[in-house]
Structures are given as structure tokens and as C-alpha cells.
């Protein structure tokens, strides 16, 4: 897919909470003796006053600062998440209001499991690309949910990134093309009244993550007529590091190409924020002229793949906190009990 006019990223910003829990603390409580080591060593945890809205505002502030865009010129705000503070009531209006973007703005929350953030990016590209708005803000942010003791609890992390899309001539990276690949695949879901999501265990791998990630990636490569070696970096959704390594290898990307964008080992899987954070980490170091390959994955299921080309504006826009600053800024919580309290997993009524 390509918009009617050239669209690109005017500014971007990331956010990862400071707190971490060691996954060993989780293993100590839940895992049987002899179980394999958790896929990541630690994961990010929201502080007592952090949620998807505060984190989205934080990331979007950096994006707007970097773009130097007047909030009044932003015509759309979408927050992609699966952990919105209100079941019914948009997060996007709170974010838009806090950033001074209201009231003449399209605003809503997007829901597509871990693909919700890239769904917001697709919509932003379309709104800007059609000329309906000058600039559009797409955010992917999560305080990822997981049932205590479930396999997902070892990786479900918190964080995300915001992308302000605008005219290609002013962009730090232009969108060369994007594709979307979705099917009805029930690998992970949460019913309306359920507290925690459920998943299909090994069904989440081959027929879900890999099938959609590989199909969307291959379609994008065909659409832009490029090969993996033409990209400086490749970013994928990162439920666990080994999924990314395998998907990259099957597509022909090297470990070096995915290295910078692989943030999960240091913070876990931020669901809708995961691949968007990886992209932000890549933009933190990318050089003008480089191409970036991006492919999200969301259960349910589908993938959005984007081909970006970095422009000369990248250097001047790179002020403010980098993803590595957030990853380095870390403090361990005091064991599983404090983690449970911070994640609201202790039932008090």
C-alpha cells in the first residue's frame, strides 16, 4: 500500500517505566524444579502512578518536541493498546487533551492485540497521505497483561512509542510502502469479563506469529522489490527473542540487522508497544539513506509491515531521551510480592 502523497515520520518518542522485575523472582514462585530458564532476564513494570495514558503522553511529548510540530496542526490521535485504563472511555482523548491537540482532532483507541500500535501507524499514514490532515499521531503503548504463573508472565512488559506522521518532505524517515496481512486466528484473546488473557500455548507460534510475520514480510519485500540485504535494520514484534531470531533467519535477515531493534531481552514484551519501541531504538542510531524493515504481529491475528527510508533530517531531530536511556534507567522491584502489588494482581475486595 502507498499513500497518494509521500508521508513520513516527523518525530518519534519512546517510553519505558523505570521499574524491573527479575523473571527469576517469578520462576521461584511458579516454575517446577528443572524448568528451562525464562526467555528474558527481567521485564519492565509500571510504577504506582504509571499507566498507558501517562506513558503515551510521555512518549508523544518527545515525538512532538522532536518534530517541532504545532499541536494545533495534528488532526488525528490514535492510541493502540490492550491495557487501556478504561474499558469504555477513550485513552486517546486524555492524551490529546494533555498535549494540547484538542478539540479539532480525530481521536480513538485501537484494539488489535500486539498489532494495535502499527494499526494506528497505518491509519496515520492514510489520513496524512490522503490530505485529510496535516499530521497524525500514532501510539503503541501497553502495560502488558498476563495471568499469574502463566508462560506470558515471564515476558509481559511495559512501554511503547509514539510516531507523529506528516508530509514526506519534512520527515526524518519516509514510508516507502506498507502491507497488512490478517486472518481470523484465535491464538490469544481476552473475553469481555475476563481478568487475564488466554492463549493457545504452542498454537501461538507456527500458525500464528510465524505465519503472519513471514507472510506480511514477504509481501512487503515483493511490493518494494527489495531484498533483506538492502535494509540496514529489521524490526519485528518480539514476544520472546528467539521468535525474532527465527523469523529473521527464515526471511534472510542477519542477527546484526535485528540486533539494535531487539529490545525485549532488556524489558520483555510490551505487547502493542513492542515493535514500535524496537523501531524507535533503530531510529536512535540510523543514518541518512538507510532503509529500515518493520513488521509487527498481533494475535487474532495479523501483521503490518513497513518499509522506511531514513532522511538527512534524522540527525537534527534526535534530541531528548533515547530508548537506551530508558533501558539503562532501571531499578529492580523488591521481589514478586511488590511486583504483584504494582501490577494490581492482588485482589483486595
Amino acid at each position, binding site marked *: 500500500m502507498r499513500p497518494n502523497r509521500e508521508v513520513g515520520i516527523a518525530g518519534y518518542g519512546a517510553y519505558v517505566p523505570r521499574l524491573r522485575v527479575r523473571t527469576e523472582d517469578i520462576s521461584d514462585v511458579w*516454575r*517446577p*524444579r*528443572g*524448568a*528451562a530458564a525464562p526467555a528474558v532476564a527481567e521485564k519492565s513494570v509500571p510504577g504506582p502512578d504509571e499507566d498507558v495514558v501517562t506513558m503515551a503522553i510521555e512518549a508523544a511529548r518527545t515525538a512532538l518536541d522532536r518534530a517541532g510540530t504545532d499541536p494545533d496542526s495534528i488532526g488525528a490521535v490514535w492510541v493502540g493498546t490492550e491495557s487501556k485504563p478504561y474499558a469504555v472511555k477513550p485513552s486517546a482523548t486524555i492524551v490529546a487533551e494533555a498535549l494540547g491537540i484538542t478539540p479539532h482532532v480525530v481521536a480513538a483507541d485501537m484494539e488489535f492485540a500486539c498489532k494495535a500500535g502499527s494499526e494506528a501507524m497505518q491509519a496515520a499514514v492514510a489520513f496524512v497521505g490522503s490530505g485529510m490532515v496535516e499530521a497524525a499521531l500514532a501510539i503503541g503503548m501497553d502495560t502488558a497483561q498476563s495471568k499469574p504463573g502463566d508462560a506470558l508472565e515471564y515476558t509481559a512488559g511495559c512501554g511503547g512509542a509514539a510516531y507523529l506522521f506528516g508530509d514526506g518532505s519534512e520527515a526524518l524517515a519516509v514510508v516507502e510502502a506498507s502491507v497488512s496481512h490478517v486472518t481470523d486466528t484465535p491464538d490469544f484473546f481476552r473475553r469481555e469479563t475476563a481478568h487475564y488473557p*488466554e*492463549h*493457545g*500455548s*504452542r*498454537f501461538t507460534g*507456527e*500458525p500464528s506469529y510465524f505465519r503472519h510475520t513471514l507472510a506480511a514480510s514477504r509481501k512487503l519485500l515483493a511490493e518494494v522489490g527489495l531484498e533483506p540485504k538492502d535494509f540496514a535494520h529489521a524490526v519485528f514484534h518480539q514476544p520472546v527473542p528467539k521468535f525474532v531470531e527465527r523469523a529473521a533467519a527464515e526471511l534472510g535477515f542477519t542477527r546484526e540487522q535485528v540486533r539494535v531493534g531487539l529490545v525485549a531481552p532488556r524489558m520483555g514484551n510490551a505487547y502493542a508497544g513492542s515493535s514500535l519501541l524496537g523501531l524507535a531504538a533503530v531510529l536512535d542510531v540510523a543514518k541518512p539513506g538507510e532503509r529500515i524493515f518493520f513488521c509487527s504481529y498481533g494475535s487474532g491475528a495479523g501483521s503490518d509491515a513497513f518499509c522506511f527510508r531514513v532522511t538527512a533530517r534524522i540527525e537534527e531531530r534526535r534530541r531528548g531521551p533515547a530508548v537506551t536511556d530508558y533501558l539503562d534507567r532501571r531499578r529492580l522491584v523488591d521481589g514478586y510480592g511488590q511486583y504483584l502489588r504494582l501490577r494490581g494482581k492482588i485482589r483486595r475486595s
Partner: protein
Amino acid sequence: MRDAFDVFIIGAGQTPVGEHWGLGLRELGAAAIRAALDDAGVETADAVFVGNMLGGCVNGQENLGALLADAAGLLPAEAWKIEAACASGGAVVRAAALSVAAGIHDVAVAVAVEKMTDAVSEQITAGLATASDNDYEASHGFSFVALSALMMRRYMHETGAGREDFAPFAVNAHRNAVANPNAMFREPISAEQFARSPLVASPIGVLDAAPVCDGAAAVVLCSRDFLKAHHRPVRIAAAAAATDTIGLAGRADILTLGAAKQSAEKAFAASGFAPTDMDFFEAHDAFTIITALSLEACGFAPRGDALRRAAHGCFSPGGCVPVSTFGGLKARGHPVGASGAYQIVEAAAQLRGEAGANQVPGARVALTQSIGGHGSIAVTHVLEA
């Protein structure tokens, strides 16, 4: 009563065992049937017997006879399902053999199929528990693994064996699966890996247990009159089944698998062969403890002696009676109601001399035993080249 009869396997087919995300009962079952018919060089069959355990409670699909007769292009052949818990795959071959032996059908297909990976583990655990006694076991929280764990604990108590002493069965199964293109786990494991494997239900560890998976296997059976020159028949020299109490609590001795013992004795008596005549044995190695008990029930080891014999290589390739020659339930995989038919398909390959790298040299007579519900039902076949 006779368990000996003149029935021949003239075709065998199987799907690879594994996680077939894109295939259901219909596709798996039909693929195995078509492969078996092609192997036999016959176009159609008079009857289709379908072995399956979990179709109703896990897949929401009963009436598998019609489903598979249609999917395999065998309408309007008579067809229905045979259910005998984990022994369904063995039971269905005997059922088809009975119809041929009775002179009712010239050509009958026995297919066994299981589709387990569409369900999450809680559903599978609940489904497998339906093989035990619901009133006195499952409804009180016993899973299938937990009941096997009780048997293993008792075995260890009586014989003084440790968990690690069960390793030879799993190590042998994995080694034998390496060269089997249809096996789920084609990687060898070491005794050390076995000892370190996480517990499922103490003392049963992950590497004691066969995996949850999908698969289908089928054989085409015919009478002596139907045999043609181009067939490479394997004779079913005997097929015998027996039952025991459904719950463990009803047994005088939970380390004697009465049904396994009775069915094996009937099969030996009917075929005229003895345990010492067997060139190999396809055992129901769903858990290492069941392998040990099955070997003892069939007369391959005295009570309490299977582990010692295993440690001496008795059940490995080249041993006195090689076991699980294509990887068994443990490593080829255990699509639960289909495993008994896989055993027979694999035994037929050995007896035809078509087992490739897994070939038991000079194999002429084989025993297969399919066990359901902790030994509450067992079906034993003696096959002869």
C-alpha cells in the same frame, strides 16, 4: 474361543506425527486411508473402522465413520468409530480383522486418528482423564498423568528403583526416532537430560511422557482369498483384547496390568508363538512406567525386572527384544487414539523389510500392544511376515 485367524495386512499408511496446525480429523484420517489403499493397490473397501478417543469431547466431532468414509472417497462403505481410550488404535485393527475373519468383508480399512493440538492443555488433560474412572478418580482431581505417577511411585517403592532408572526406555525411543521421517521428536536424548527433565506429576518428568500431538495411521486388511500376487502381505497371526477394572483402586496389584497380561497370553496361545519368538515389540510407552509394566505383562521380563533388563540393553536395537523400533509413543509421538494403529503400521514395515535404517534384521514375528486407561483395556497383536 479363537483369536487366531487368516487375515492379512496388504496396505499401510500414516501421516507424520506432529502439530498439524492446518489439518483436522478429516484431512489426517483421509490422508492415512488413501496412503494405505495406494500401498495395497486397491481402489475401495467394504468397510471403514475408525479408531479415535477424543473426537467427541475435544474436537466436537463424532460420527467419524461417515466423516472419513466421505473424505476418503469410500462412500457408501459401512463405517463407524471404535473407542477404547488410548487403546483405540489397537482395538480398531482387531475390529476390522474380526469382520474379515468372519467372512463378512473381503477388504476392510482400519484407520485411527487423533487431533489434539486444536485444544489448550486444560481441555486435553480433561479429555484424557475420561479414560479413567470418572466417579472415583477423575472427578476427584486425578489427571491421567497423576494416576500413572501413582503406579510409578509404587514400582519405585517395591523395586528400589530411582527415577533415573527409567531412562533407558526414553533414550531408546528417541534414538530410534532419529531415522523415522514420520516421528515428532527426531533428536536423541541422554540419560542425563532425562534425569534433569522437569517434573509433570512426581515422579513422572517431561521425558517420561509421550507428547500431545496429531496423526493418523491406517491399514487395509483382507482375507486369504482376496490376496493377489502383487501384495506383500503381513499376516495377523492373532489379535486379542482384554479388560481390567477401570479404576486403579479395584486392583489387587496395581503393578500387574491384568488386561495387558490376559490379552498377550491369549495372543500367544492363539498364534502358537511364545515371547521368546518375538523379533521385536511395539510397546505402549505413553509413560516409561507403562513400558516397564507392559514388558512384564507380556512376559519379556519377570515382575519388577524390566528396568534391570533395560539397563543391560535388552530392549535396544540388537537386544533380546528391541522395543519401539520407530520411536514409540514417546518419540514418534502419541496421537492418543491413533498410536495403536501406528504400532501396527510400523510393525508391518519391519516385517516387510521396509524399515530402512530402523530395520530389525531378519524380523519375522512381532508383538504390538496398545493399552488404554492405565491398563483397564489392552489389545495385543501378533504379526507374522
